[in-house]
């Protein structure tokens, strides 16, 4: 019963947090998620305008009550500066996907490049047998592109994980 209720209220949350840029903060952060029973769907990190501060974008599945509890646990970590749950309607979410696709003849190569253009992707590497493209977008866009590439045969694929930022106030 509990599990059923949980699964009904589960949705994807984007959590933004900034931490002191020092050794071990990532493991502190990741530890806390796993010990509270979460699987991190995506995580992306890099320093901000201040190189001493690393900003993480983390996406998880949760319900509202539990995600709030998780955030108050996160706020207790000493290296943490702030923790926010992003409102997806007021924020921009992007990830970069690199995908190497089988392209052994001209027809395939042309079609892959055309589809890439539709997705505003760019060809970053080309060989007689394959093409590597980079595509940027939210997970729906990169997911759709991945689906289309499956037809050609995906040789390798890498995602950065979502980074997100709040939209400016109008």
């Amino acid at each position, binding site marked *: 019963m509990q599990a059923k209720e949980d699964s009904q209220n589960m949705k994807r949350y984007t959590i933004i947090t900034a931490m002191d840029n020092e*050794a071990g903060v990532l493991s502190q952060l990741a*530890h806390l998620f796993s010990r509270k029973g979460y699987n991190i769907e995506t995580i992306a990190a890099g320093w901000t305008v201040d190189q001493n501060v690393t900003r993480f974008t983390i996406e998880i599945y949760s319900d509202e009550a539990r995600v709030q509890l998780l955030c108050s646990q996160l*706020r*207790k970590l*000493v290296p943490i500066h*702030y923790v926010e749950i992003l409102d997806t309607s007021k924020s921009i979410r992007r990830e970069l996907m690199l995908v190497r696709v089988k392209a052994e003849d001209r027809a395939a190569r042309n079609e892959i490049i055309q589809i890439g253009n539709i997705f505003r992707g760019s060809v970053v590497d080309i060989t007689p047998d394959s093409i590597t493209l980079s595509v940027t977008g939210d997970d729906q866009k990169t997911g759709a592109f991945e689906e289309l590439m499956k037809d050609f045969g995906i040789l390798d694929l890498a995602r950065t994980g979502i980074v997100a930022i709040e939209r400016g106030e109008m």
Partner: protein
Amino acid sequence: MNSNTRKLNGSEILIQCLLEQGVDTIFGYPGGAILNVYDALYAHPEIRHILTSHEQGASHAADGYARSTGKVGVCFATSGPGATNLTTGIATAYMDSSPVVFITCNVNNDLIGRDSFQEVDIAGVSLPVTKCSYIVSDVTKLADTVREAFVIARSGRPGPVLIDIQKNATAGECDYTPMTPEEFEAHPDRRIARLKATHHPSVSYPDINIHAVEELADMLDKAEKPLLICGGGVVRSEASEEFRELAHRLDIPVAITVMGGGAFGGYDDLKTGMIGMHGSQASNMACDACDLLLAVGCRFSDRVTLNPAGFAKNAKIAHIDIDPSEIDKNVKTDLHIIGDAKAVLKLLLGKLKRDRHNDEWKKYVFSFKRETEYDDPEDGTLTPMQILSAAAEILPQDTMVTTDVGQHQMWAIQHFRFDYPRQLTTSGGFGTMGFGLGAAIGVQAGNPEKTVLHVTGDGSFRMNCNELATEAYYKMPIITLLFNNSTLGMVRQWQHLIYHEHYSQTTLDRGPDFVKLAEAYGIHGRCVKDEATLRQTLTEAVNSRFDGRGWVIDCRIDIDEMVRPMVGGNSFITNFMLY
């Protein structure tokens, strides 16, 4: 450069930083990686180092010292097994919000990551059970790390902190400038400044929401059947006086958690006793019937609430706690106030609308109060209640008590009238068997003028009785009252009630002879099987206090004694299996 600046090695800097914090007692155990630190300590007789038999004993002693004095405890251990032996003690301190700084040393920088002899990532191991775990590889970072660790351990919701110092950082030299804790906390360039400015929960709490305080005063004014829960936070924030005033001005019955023991007067007429799994009928019935439940410094653990869905089901629940992550964690509240219990209660007392009486409600609640529910057996067998009554009568009234974990713990907490904060030291959250003796050593070290009673069971005592050597060496007259029922009593009780009397691996029909054990360590040992001998022995123990030798009083009780009352786990709080 400050004229007080000197060039010192890391070990001496560590000692100087401990002196800055006013540390005069350290519990610990030396070893290879921490040799430099012990070498520096050699030149500082003003710091008393208590060498235990085992690092776990040192960890519990530092914890007991912290809990009983309100100061930050300090514990040293070496790398590898020395460090991992601390982990149960760290977790115990963490679960009960006890401020302890654990200092371990690790192998040299050039050996880190090579699976070197006695190398372990103790900072990683301890991460889930500390407020913060530091690694220091650079001697220039050492002083500020130690200073920050003390602030974090004692501030906000207190808790343990671990500093793992690599051996090279204990040998390397750098400039050291003394700094008082006040100067450090006010220093704008240190991380602590950011933590304070942003009200980071590790060190601070946001401004108290005065509207919520007013609303709570209003709720208390309107409530017809209010109940207070006194939790461990009342002890930690030294809010006993304010809590007592609140209870008395509004004439509200008070239920007490294990960790709240001593924070509310043991002889007070408003006390309903312990609440929860082994709570009194008065507490649990009041919890079920009340229309307003105000919990102060309590985290609604499963041993208190049992089934959270039915907990205080007729009541609005209000919660005062310093830790925002405790709000709505286990029980959904109607009103919460984040802040230090003492500060919040002070504000609340100023907002109370009127003093009042709750005669009808009190009459109902205290109609469930039973003074004693145990009959003395006709064959003269010693009972737990006889032991506790004798101890309460014969030992000084301000005796400080530590316990291990199990039946004896519940009996002691139910029966003793703890009357001042920090009188009781017990492992409430983590339930660490083997905690009691180490803790008693810490309590006695911090309170040399007090009588210290260590209540234990035969199962718990066997775990860490090696610390009798420490007790004997430092001439600590600790009285160990051993409830010996030749079984892991609490587990047996569950096996009896729930597991069809399958006493799987709980019967302790084996040694040692505890009297001979005590004597082997050079302290008094006595086996007692009847009340008269027990009383005589306790009197002797009190009178021999100044010979500096502790006592182990092996009290033989029946194997089938049970803790009453009892509510089954996850059951409703009034659903008693045993009365």
